[in-house]
């Protein structure tokens, strides 16, 4: 399916055109909008003007215009036509992976993350390993064997030191996640010490951890000594905000966690400033505003605010799950823009930022994107390229491209003896998903600029469904909403283009 242009009006009655081919939005005179609308309906506009516009013509609800006005805009439309603004544009989703692509991404990955254990000392209600979710292996108190992690590191170091790696003086993050990572501290100490003996040609390691904070008082000295970046999960500054974060005996964990945070702040104030961060889950017991205010005021920190994961909810518990969700859509944030939002809390800034990045035509990924300025064939959907960001190893030795997707999407496995990572097989696995979802993408007007992760779209089911699918009408709405926002907040555009960085 090819698409040419989108015509839309804002709530303030201004008219615009978005050209798919030129990836540019232009403000239009009402006559031009009127004529292009006729053009959209396959009416020959030159003939139409000749026939219908004598001396004066009234465009309904707009005003009266002269014949020469119409003739000028016919010329301008010709100019747009000559310069590709109305040209049919069909980016091909024909690109597919081969084994070399996958290997290349792994040689350039930014992070290796270990699910240190699937055990946890809390029983948070919304945990992705809990009863609400059906796409993760159920916890069986399995600790990841450090020999498996070492095997993985040896394998990866070969790639990172190879000429497939394109970066230099690069930080590679070793991430420790759980369950609750601190329940397997022996593993963490072993891997940190082991990693220090590794020779990296073009990179260096840094250590990262996400923790519920309960055991931090016990292990903080080691973590500080090794300059860990620690993300502590906490949903706000009140016990009630943390209603879902509790011990297995149903008692609230808030006081214990909060006490440990204060302990670190007092004992290691400089470290606290540099390396401690917070992750909050947004639900019906807190609000974005409360979360931001608490962490800003109390610790001078901007937390990452995450929504409850809505992927693969147990169908039997879906009503109960929905009760937990934050329903105030205006307050829903996105982790990438938290820093930005800290100083510019304005409704819809996140959507508008995404919009500017996608449709202004002025945002380039890198210098090659600037030099080629071509949008050639691409991979379907907006799914991250396999391993381009990270590689994730579960406590059972499953290999995944990301910790946020279901374990059914494993792409390999590792044990004490061997690592099973067949690049060709992975390429075929992904290509199979692409072939399947591409049928849907081909009917979607968002296809050229999709940011959707296919693993969140029931890709393995028979009838693949995409909740971001957009027909022409929905695209008109999308453009209209965002340009209406721009008209009211025009300074935001400059802040976004000058300051916002996805990285």
């Amino acid at each position: 399916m090819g698409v040419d242009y989108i015509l839309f009006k804002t709530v303030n009655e201004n008219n615009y055109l978005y050209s798919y081919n030129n990836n540019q939005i232009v403000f239009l005179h009402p006559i031009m909008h009127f004529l292009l609308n006729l053009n959209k309906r396959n009416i020959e506009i030159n003939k139409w003007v000749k026939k219908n516009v004598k001396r004066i013509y009234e465009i309904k609800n707009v005003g009266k215009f002269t014949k020469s006005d119409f003739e000028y805009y016919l010329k301008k439309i010709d100019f747009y036509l000559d310069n590709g603004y109305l040209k049919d544009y069909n980016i091909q989703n024909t690109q597919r992976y081969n084994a070399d692509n996958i290997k290349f991404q792994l040689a350039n990955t930014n992070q290796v993350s270990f699910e240190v254990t699937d055990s946890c000392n809390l029983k948070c209600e919304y945990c992705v390993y809990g009863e609400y979710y059906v796409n993760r292996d159920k916890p069986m108190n399995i600790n990841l064997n450090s020999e498996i992690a070492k095997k993985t590191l040896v394998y990866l170091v070969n790639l990172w030191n190879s000429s497939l790696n394109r970066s230099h003086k690069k930080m590679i993050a070793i991430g420790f996640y759980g369950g609750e990572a601190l329940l397997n501290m022996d593993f963490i100490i072993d891997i940190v010490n082991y990693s220090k003996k590794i020779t990296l040609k073009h990179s260096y390691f840094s250590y990262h951890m996400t923790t519920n904070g309960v055991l931090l008082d016990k292990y903080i000295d080691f973590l500080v000594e090794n300059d860990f970046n620690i993300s502590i999960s906490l949903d706000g500054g009140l016990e009630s905000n943390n209603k879902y974060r509790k011990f297995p005996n149903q008692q609230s964990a808030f006081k214990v966690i909060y006490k440990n945070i204060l302990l670190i702040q007092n004992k290691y104030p400089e470290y606290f400033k540099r390396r401690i961060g917070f992750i909050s889950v947004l639900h019906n017991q807190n609000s974005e505003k409360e979360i931001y205010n608490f962490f800003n005021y109390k610790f001078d920190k901007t937390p990452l605010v995450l929504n409850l994961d809505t992927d693969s909810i147990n169908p039997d518990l879906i009503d109960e799950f929905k009760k937990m969700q934050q329903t105030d859509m205006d307050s829903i944030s996105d982790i990438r823009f938290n820093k930005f939002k800290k100083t510019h809390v304005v409704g819809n800034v996140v959507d508008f930022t995404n919009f500017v990045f996608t449709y202004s035509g002025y945002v380039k990924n890198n210098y090659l994107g600037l030099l080629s300025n071509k949008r050639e064939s691409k991979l379907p959907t907006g799914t991250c390229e396999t391993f381009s960001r990270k590689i994730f190893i579960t406590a059972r030795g499953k290999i995944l491209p990301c910790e946020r997707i279901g374990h059914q999407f494993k792409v390999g496995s590792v044990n004490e003896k061997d690592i099973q990572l067949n690049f060709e097989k992975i390429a075929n696995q992904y290509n199979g998903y692409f072939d399947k979802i591409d049928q849907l993408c081909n009917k979607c007007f968002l296809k050229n600029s999709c940011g959707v992760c296919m693993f969140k779209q029931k890709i393995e089911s028979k009838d693949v469904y995409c909740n971001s699918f957009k027909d022409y009408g929905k695209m008109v709405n999308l453009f209209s909403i965002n340009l209406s926002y721009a008209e009211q907040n025009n300074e935001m555009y400059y802040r976004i283009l000058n300051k916002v960085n996805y990285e």
Partner: protein
Amino acid sequence: MNNENQWLFIEPYVVITINDKKALFYNSLNGEKLEYSNSSKIYNLAKRLNSNKNSYIVKLSKIDMDDFEIYKFAKNIRNLFIGDLVNTSFSQLKPFQFKPILNIQKGVYFLKKSKDFNVGRHMMQYLNELTLQLNEKCSLDCINCDSYYKQFSFCTKSNKISNELDINQIERIIEDIKGTSMQKIKIIGGDIFKYSELEELNKFLNKYPYLIEYYIQYKNLYLNLDMINVFNESNSLNILVNGDIDFGILTAITELLQKKGLNVSFSFVTSNNNECGKIEEIISNIGIENYTIRPFYNKSNLSFFKENVFINKKDIFEEKPTLNDIFIRQTINQINFGKLLIKSNGDVYSNPNDIKLGNIKIDTIYDSVFNEMDSGRSWWSIRTKVKPCNKCVYNLICPPISNYEIYTKRYNLCHIHR
């Protein structure tokens, strides 16, 4: 045109540049332009239009529209599709125009600010051309031997004849550039035929998918005709012709190269009009088809450069750079970007006129690319950063800074700023 209040707007494909003296509106689709001096009312209007607050749209009152200068400007921008007018009564709020502002997500600006990444991020993908100086030995004594290569691709020799790039070093470099966007490897000397392992090197390089281009002074080729079989049809030979041309030798090697069916081009060096005329005559007499005549600045031929190299306003606009060309020109030097030169002593440069980035005997090629990304000059040499171009209203439209300009340290090889 309606006489009520109007939104006057500039199209998003138009670039506005303003200096102390002038305002320029450049239509990047059709190359049309409008210029106004600072004494014109439009100069101030351009400043208003270009401000972030107004973002290419200002409101004009009936009184404004009655002003002949503004009326004429509005008429001109409409005729050249640079902008337009819309009666304000058609809308309830000021419209919004996407004024062109470039944002490179993984560009050095953001990478230098990043906590997690640095300028080394994916940097090797930018490397696209490598020049390897195999040696510095040569039996010729060309005048200006030490200067040609600083202005264009050319051989150069020195007294340090022992300098030679070790083939093992070259192999290591080629291994290191596997993940890059490498397109071309240029091989220069000295006299490359005096390189001890030329044949072995060519065999090795031919295993890779890069265009291998050899730069050979024509007299050196003539003296080593028996070695011509080292090259094959996938190589490219650039025959360098400078100084007083020996017609017989040039004819002989041209005929031989034609017979061999090799991919050959010629570079003729000239520093004055007389020489240039003779070169054209020789080219015509021998029947050379694939050639370039390269003006050479010898520090005493400025008038020749003014006549043949300097550009004027017409030249600048004739090229009709697109909006993306302009984005490139405000960010990188497209002539130098992605290129490295490795001299026979191992020193690495992004441009022979610039400072050393590293030495291949001590550092990896990654180190040199990193240094260029982090604090280098050649890849980032743009007109908005150098005098007097930084004050010129055409600095985004003008072609990238050339080696002539870097060599002469004079960035206005033009008839605009004398």
